[in-house]
């Protein structure tokens, strides 16, 4: 292995340089600390995002009713406790932005790519610890900017998380398109820079720093997922950056990339020749791969957690890799399915329907492989495992309705209704969150040297699982009834009056689900300090991170980095007493390495 030799030289290095508080906890270059920073920032943003969703769910269930909590939290934007329509849109927008980018992209991928890539491939750290640190702090700056936009005079961005121009481009169109939108765009630009630095680092690390014996086909599926995710990010995020920059130009410097023939507030604007559809193309060229940027790491984590806790090899390892690659490739040529009725040529609609439905094939392969992995296993049903099984369940439920939305014809009538909201929340929102939770429960001992409370974990899972379906299953119905999303209230349409009670049911489930996350938060913080101390390999797992000592230090392993002799999934292999064989154990005499 040529790649192994680089590490072999590095092994000679002593890794006990002096660290101050600042270099250890703040501007740390150690991937494990950066992972924790990502996790805690991501969780913090996640709680804000979830809290916002609860606020607008209250408004949807009991429209225009005064709530004391609105007055406390929203102040002048909720006079007498009644939420203002602009604020409703702002909450929806910022909820979407925070959850998609700050929690499920940075919080999920940032945490686990950073934690696991070096540890699972057998490297002392990322290829560039410095860039890694810069990546986190750029992310932190972009979080701060996004949150600061909540405090500007006219309110934060309110054009939906996709911020389509002209609505987002013209301050005359809505109050949120003023300073709030500027902050949104700047924050996203910085976020993209952060994400690109991170992704480049992940790709370089996986390609170059694998330990001796760690061939690509011995990599755990987590690493495959993070690796491919990073590549998708590198390919698609720059396009969003260009869209954001062009939008900034249109807003501030009078260009007309996305704007043409506009009359607003009694005035004809000077813009000529641009097209909002161009923005849609640029946005969704990232926007759709983004779904997989969110989802693939969660699926990678699931693969690892399922196999470990089923005490069985992941079924169809090579098929899993092939499906990750297929999904990644297809994800870059399906963006048009968000635009079937945008006014683009209907012929393009046919093309995008074709590519979109193709994506269902590798996804189906993954789902079936997960189910087969459970078959005849010896399932250790700890909280991480429950969340992984839950992920497979919501991935199937949410993914299947994608067949309706990906079909251009069927999309006509359910486009931008609550059917879409239900679909993507299940398939990428809830699934990715489950992946995040599974990852936290599974690698908490690795991150903090302690265990979380099992029973609180069980409560967290069951309440969340029931409520997730309770929220999003009925939502399909109101969508199929034709109820558009992003409506502040439905009371202006008597036609929708019979859907009001469904909205109440959804909100009640959402509130309970929100409460369940407090259980998790308590468990997380409490266990960080008072949890039971862990043993080195609590799950009896095969991957390399569990061969590293419990205590954290820069460099991960004392002495030599372990060499790898087998794939990551030798669980319950016949001819061995133990039901797991870590990757660094050499093959027994006469033992065959599986031709997976």
């Amino acid at each position, binding site marked *: 292995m040529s790649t192994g030799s680089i590490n072999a030289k590095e092994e000679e290095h002593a890794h006990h340089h002096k660290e101050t508080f600042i270099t250890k906890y703040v501007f740390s270059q150690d991937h494990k600390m950066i992972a924790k920073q990502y996790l805690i920032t991501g969780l913090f943003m996640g709680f804000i995002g979830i809290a916002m969703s609860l606020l607008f769910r209250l408004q949807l269930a*009991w429209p225009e*009713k005064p709530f004391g909590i609105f007055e406390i939290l929203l102040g002048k934007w909720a006079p007498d406790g009644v939420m203002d329509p*602009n604020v409703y*849109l702002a909450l929806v927008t910022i909820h979407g932005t925070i959850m998609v980018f700050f929690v499920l992209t940075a919080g999920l991928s940032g945490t686990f790519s950073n934690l696991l890539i070096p540890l699972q491939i057998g490297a002392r750290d990322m290829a560039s610890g410095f860039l890694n640190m810069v990546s986190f702090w750029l992310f932190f700056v972009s979080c701060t900017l996004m949150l600061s936009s909540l405090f500007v005079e006219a309110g934060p961005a309110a054009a939906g998380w996709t911020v*389509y121009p*002209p609505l987002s481009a013209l301050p005359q169109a809505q109050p949120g398109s003023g300073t709030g939108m500027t902050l949104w765009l700047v924050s996203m630009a910085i976020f993209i820079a952060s994400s690109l630095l991170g992704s480049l680092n992940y790709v370089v690390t996986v390609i170059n720093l694998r330990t001796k014996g760690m061939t690509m086909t011995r990599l755990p599926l987590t690493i495959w997922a993070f690796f491919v995710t990073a590549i998708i990010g590198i390919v698609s995020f720059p396009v969003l950056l260009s869209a954001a920059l062009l939008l900034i130009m249109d807003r501030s410097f009078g260009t007309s990339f996305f704007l043409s023939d506009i*009359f607003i507030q*009694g005035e004809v604007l000077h813009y000529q020749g641009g097209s*909002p559809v161009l923005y849609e193309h640029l946005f969704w060229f990232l926007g759709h791969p983004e779904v997989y940027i969110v989802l693939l790491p969660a699926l990678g984590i699931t693969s690892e957690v399922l196999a470990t806790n*089923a005490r*069985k090899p992941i079924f169809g*390892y090579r*098929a899993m890799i092939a499906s990750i690659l297929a999904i990644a490739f297809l994800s870059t040529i399906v963006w048009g399915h968000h635009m079937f009725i*945008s*006014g683009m040529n209907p012929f393009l609609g046919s093309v995008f329907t074709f590519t979109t439905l193709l994506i269902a*094939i590798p996804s189906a*392969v993954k*789902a079936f492989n997960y*189910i087969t992995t*459970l078959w*005849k*296993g*010896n*399932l*250790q*049903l700890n909280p991480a*495992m429950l969340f992984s*099984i839950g992920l497979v*369940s919501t991935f*199937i*439920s949410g993914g*299947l*309705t994608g*067949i309706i939305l990906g*079909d*251009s*014809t069927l999309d006509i*009538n359910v486009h931008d209704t609550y059917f879409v909201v239900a679909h993507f929340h299940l398939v990428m929102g809830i699934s990715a969150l489950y992946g995040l939770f599974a990852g936290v429960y599974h690698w908490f001992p690795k991150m903090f040297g302690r265990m979380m409370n*099992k029973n*609180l974990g069980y*409560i967290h899972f*069951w309440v969340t699982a029931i409520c997730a379906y309770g929220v999003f*299953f009925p939502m399909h*119905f109101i969508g199929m*009834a*034709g109820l*558009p999303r*992003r*409506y*502040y209230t439905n009371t202006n*349409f008597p036609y929708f*009056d019979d859907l009001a009670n*469904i909205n*109440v049911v959804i909100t009640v489930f959402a509130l309970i689900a929100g*409460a369940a996350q407090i*259980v998790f938060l308590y468990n997380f913080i409490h266990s960080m300090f008072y949890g039971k101390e862990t043993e080195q390999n*609590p*799950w009896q797992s095969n991957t390399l991170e569990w061969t590293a000592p419990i205590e954290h230090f820069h460099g991960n392993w004392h002495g030599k980095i372990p060499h790898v002799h087998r794939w990551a999934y030798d*669980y*319950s292999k016949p001819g061995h007493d133990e039901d797991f064989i870590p990757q660094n154990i050499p093959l027994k005499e006469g033992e065959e390495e599986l031709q997976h």
Partner: protein
Amino acid sequence: MTIFLTLILLILVTVSIWQVTKILELSQPKVQSSQIADDSDNQTQGKLMFAFLIFVYGLTIFSFWMWGDVLLPNAASEHGSEYDNLMWATFSVIFFVQTITQALLHYFSYKYRGEKSRKAFFYADNDVLEAIWTIIPTIVLAVLILFGLYTWNDVMFVEENEDALMVELYAQQFNWKARYGGEDNVLGDANVRFLQDFDGKNLVGIDATDPNGLDDIIVQELHLPVGKEIIFKMRSQDVLHSAYMPHFRAQMNCVPGMITEFAFTPIRTTEQMRMDPDIISKVRKINEIRKVNSVELIANGEEALEPYIFDYLLLCNKVCGASHYNMQMKIIVETEQEFNKWIKNQQTFAQFVQ
């Protein structure tokens, strides 16, 4: 009242979660909780997994039983039934797959719950199985794609057609206008630059130098003759909007600086739709809800809600600003005679701006 009850419910749920945790903690006083699942955990959680399967099925059945009637309002356009067939075909495929896969997933989670004494079955690969579940979805999807594309081409490719009625849907924050081509059935050229002509009476910016535009008719309520193809041309003057007409299975974005189009043929008049048994029972249900809500309103000294009568709707379905939620227009489908009578009484553009 409902809010109060819900809040109480929430508090109770929170308290009970907390209590359950306490009980669980107290019931195992010696062992400090670790995350590792022992045999008794596996037993309980495995059974819960099976219970969860029943919950998922139960929720599905309950939802269809309670709310099944709101799904896909009756189609009122010619391509509507084609759309509905495709939807229900896709739906049955989805439903079938969902039922089977969820069952397998949760049943396996229950059946193979761990025991210390057992060892898992080492089973890493099977090319035949992989091939099966690659090929079967491929075939099913191929059928759906072909069926879908066939319908899509049917619905979306608008052919210019002498007999069709030309209607422009004009969107602005936050209302709709409709423009008919008038006697010549040709829509005159228009641009937002002309909006301020005639002291703002040029409501959709018709180019007064284009003779085709003079007989155009601009209205705030969309009337359509039944059984005649309608070709819609969509425009917007400010931001993106989307013209969504759920009963006609029709939707198209309105894009500033661009004209988009969609065509359909309405097949049922508003009157016919109001006589439809499904609609009658829906209207009755809605009016019962409105009556109950009115009682509360009257108690607060406000006016009661008006009884609801069915009408077709045009909604805005692309977020467009603060009043997006109230950007609507009534659609009236009527017989051709009624339509002709109505349109004769409307002012043309030339008459209006004089």
